[in-house]
């Protein structure tokens, strides 16, 4: 144990005696101290920057105003998106399956115009009336539909003797009225 500690002391004294000779120790010391100082300054200027950017957090009214502004911005965004989503959802009702090259314009306007023509004693010349092929088709379809309804009505009347009797009675009354006139 004693010999080991003696050996250690010997090695230590040898190492101390054979220390490397350094030139410019003072320069080196200055360099090291300078570098450590620069790191400190960079660190200090960064924290100064952060502190100046976020200085508002220590001013109550500015902090509250910015937080309110952020909240309002978020609310405005949510409100705007809700309105847009509602509008877009309503668009689904306006969707049609196919590409509409042109809408075949078939409506009851022509029918109403014809009614008007009749009501007003045909004040408009027939040449002023225009009708397309599609409208012609619609009139023929309406005619067919009317025929079908008429046949159905006749069938219903035929199948119901009470109804038939009452209609015949009405018709007879009408005929009597006309003959009296």
């Amino acid at each position, binding site marked *: 144990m004693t010999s080991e500690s003696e050996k250690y002391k010997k090695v230590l004294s040898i190492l101390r005696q054979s220390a490397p000779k350094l030139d410019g120790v003072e320069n080196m010391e200055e360099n090291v101290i300078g570098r450590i100082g620069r790191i400190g300054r960079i660190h200090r200027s960064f924290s100064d920057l952060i502190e100046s950017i976020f200085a508002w957090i220590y001013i109550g009214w500015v902090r509250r105003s910015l937080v309110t502004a*952020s909240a309002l911005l978020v609310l405005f965004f949510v409100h705007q998106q809700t309105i847009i989503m509602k509008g877009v959802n309503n668009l689904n009702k306006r969707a049609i399956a*196919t590409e*509409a090259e*042109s809408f075949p314009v078939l409506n009851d306007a022509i029918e109403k115009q014809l009614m008007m023509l009749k009501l007003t004693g*045909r004040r408009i010349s027939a040449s002023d009336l225009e009708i397309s092929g599609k409208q012609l088709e619609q009139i023929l379809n309406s005619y067919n539909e009317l025929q079908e309804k008429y046949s159905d009505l006749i069938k219903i009347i035929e199948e119901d003797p009470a109804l038939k009797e009452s209609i015949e009675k009405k018709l007879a009354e009408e005929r009597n009225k006309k003959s009296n006139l």
Partner: protein
Amino acid sequence: MKNSKLKIIIATALAIVASCNEPKTVVTDIIHPDGSVTRRIEIKNAENKFKASDIQIPLDNTWTVRDSVEISKNGDTVWVKRAEKLFKNVEAINRDYNADSSYNKSITRKAAFSKNFRWFHTGYRFSETIDKKMSNGYPVSDFLNPEELAWFYSPYNINESKRNGPDSLKYKALSDTVKKKTDRWWAKSIVSEWIGGFTRLTAGKAGKEVSFESLKAREDEFVRRLEADDKKFDSLWENGVILKEYIGEVNALKYKAEADSSMNMVVNDVFVNFRDYTLRIVMPGQVTGTNGFIDSTNVLNWPVQSNYFLTEPYEMWAESKVPNRWAWIVSGLFLLFVVTGIIIKQKGKG
């Protein structure tokens, strides 16, 4: 036999009238974010006749025009005229409408465009409006509920496919209801328009019993008479029977000319010189609202037909939005800044 004969007669008679071929026109407005509009017109006709006065939209030599001949699905030859023009703004379109010499010149049309900055996006609105023809008619919305109104403004082919689809009974009933109610709307509007015209013509001459207010008060009575006697209304009118009942014998004799003139004015309003067409609009960005129909290509479509603008203006409108990316970035950075500040404050406290 009788029926088929009748059908042939009707078909032949109508085919003669139908032979005045009506060009099928589709107008496409492509709206640009700066408010300029590229307007494209496609006119298809069974004949190679494209007189500007036969076309539904004003078209002159300032347009770039391309003519072609195509064969339709049915194997028929179709002459097609395609025209395109870039309008600097809607005012330029309105100038064309004001100097309209097309077939539809008797109606008043105008286009409008607006652009609104909404921070996260910019909103666009484009509309085309056709002014109403009758000044005293009733809006059709007074007679129809929202579902019936939707049916009324829907294109014929869409309604037909519903009528023949799975819910045919429901849609047939709806169609019948709309027809009944629009017949009533039509009759009331005609009577109201006649009253308006008649009282204008007799203003200052006639007594209180033929004033606008007193005739309006008896409007429903007149409408009921018109509906009840529709088969013989023309003869009753010609003989002055209805007028005598409505405004009294003395006034009927005195103001027969005015009554007839007013009726002629109503007829002119109803028989407006108008050829139907389809309007299509392509908006910038994402569409957010419209009263048109969106087809599979995301284009907005409207049928333009005379009964839509008889008693109220017909507005075809569309709204869209284009996101402002820079506003999203600025807002995101601002939120990040505030949240970071709050975190720093909380850490400082800790």
